[in-house]
């Protein structure tokens, strides 16, 4: 699969898995890599960019064993972006299926 295309999908997945719960960087990588074949080391840079773009905000939670842990929380802007991505994605997939199932030639 084209790397850029894959990155775009991963971006949607990152936003989606954070939709319901706040996660720390490690959890995001773990959760995503369990479901999707992804180059794990590219997730943090992506997470960082999305945070700088305002789709996530971060906060720290004290940890009993070490330094405070940083959690990522989706912002309102992030929710909007996710909705936009999902609608584009659904439209795209609909078209792809139409073609693959033979309707596209009509």
């Amino acid at each position, binding site marked *: 699969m084209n790397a850029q295309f894959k990155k775009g999908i991963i971006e949607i997945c990152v936003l989606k898995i954070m939709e319901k719960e706040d996660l720390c*960087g*490690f959890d995001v*990588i773990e959760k995503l890599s369990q479901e999707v074949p992804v180059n*794990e080391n590219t997730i*943090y*840079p*992506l997470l960082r*960019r999305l945070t700088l773009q305002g789709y996530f905000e971060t906060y720290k939670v004290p940890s009993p*064993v070490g*330094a405070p842990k940083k959690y990522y929380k989706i912002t309102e802007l992030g929710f909007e972006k996710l909705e936009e991505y999902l609608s584009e994605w659904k439209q795209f997939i609909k078209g792809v299926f139409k073609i693959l199932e033979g309707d596209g030639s009509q």
Partner: protein
Amino acid sequence: MKEKYLEELKKLLAEYDIKQDEIDDILADYGEMIEDALGKNMSDEQIIKMIGSPKQVVNDLSEEFEKDEEFIYIHRGGHGKHANKDNKIVALMPFISVIIFFILGFGFELWHPGWLVFLSIPMVAIMVNAFEKNSLNGILALSPFVAVIIFLILGFAWDFWHPGWLIFLIIPVLGILSGYKTMKFLSFLTSISPFIAALTFVLVGTYTGLWNPIWLIFLIIPMIGILTEKKLWKVLLLEFSFLVAITVYLLAGYLESQWGLGLFAFLIPVGVSILTSDDSFLVITNKNKDVWLLFLFVLAVYIGLGVLTGETWGYLWMIFLGIPVYAILKHAPKENAIVAIMPFLATVIFFSLGYFFSFWAFSWLAFLLIPMVAIIKNA
């Protein structure tokens, strides 16, 4: 393993043009991820596979941020031929400025305002360095100088020091505009509303003397902010409560000359906000109880002294700045607190010098304390 990994990552990141606090943040994030992985008994190899080698990390970060022009902050810089040529121009500017200054002075008796030419030194440095990375940031970085030049021209040529100082509002306004791409329209409107309000307040106040009730224009800030609320009934209720409060205030003032008492009408929107909010800061909790107490105390002092003396309305509002200052001192990391409270201190200095001594022409200099303190603190 963790120390070695972070040390190598730090070394590689240092080769790039990234701010120190960004580097520290990235290192802290990777340190945390390694800790988490070690906590799950992952081997060194598994950890490297998961988070990538330091070299991969830097490459991935670099690649990720080059995708969007707005967010390029990680790139190699400073060693190419192009950079050398640019640096020469920056290094030559002081000499060029001195020469132009003397030509203007000796040749045309333009010592003043010929000295303005010295502003070209930082301006050229900004144009060369900031525009190269991001044109919007370049404009933003140049805006203080452009504002100073316009302000001085307005002042020297037409004695327009006040309200000419309002030109400095372009600095924060441009700052907000630079974030426009990533902001929702309503958030943008809310962010820009204090400046629109301040501009209207000062201009109308200066030329008509109607400081009261023109200060009501500041209510556009919460009234626009409310529009971001998702529930329509809440929006309508809150907006309505503001309109009722404004109407009562104006009626009390104009019909009964009871401007002070009229202020109590604004307890209506405050009350409605408290009653309708579910997770907003307006709900009193154990965490924000002290801030609320402080707010009520300050409100009581402001209204009490205003009603008793009738003279303190115009300047005592500054005590409200004590509330965010208190909240910052309570919550912000101690090392950054002084930087965070500087805008409030600068506002107090600026307004006090202007209001009590009519030093509007110079009091804006107080705002320079903000970047100065930030620079000294980070130096």
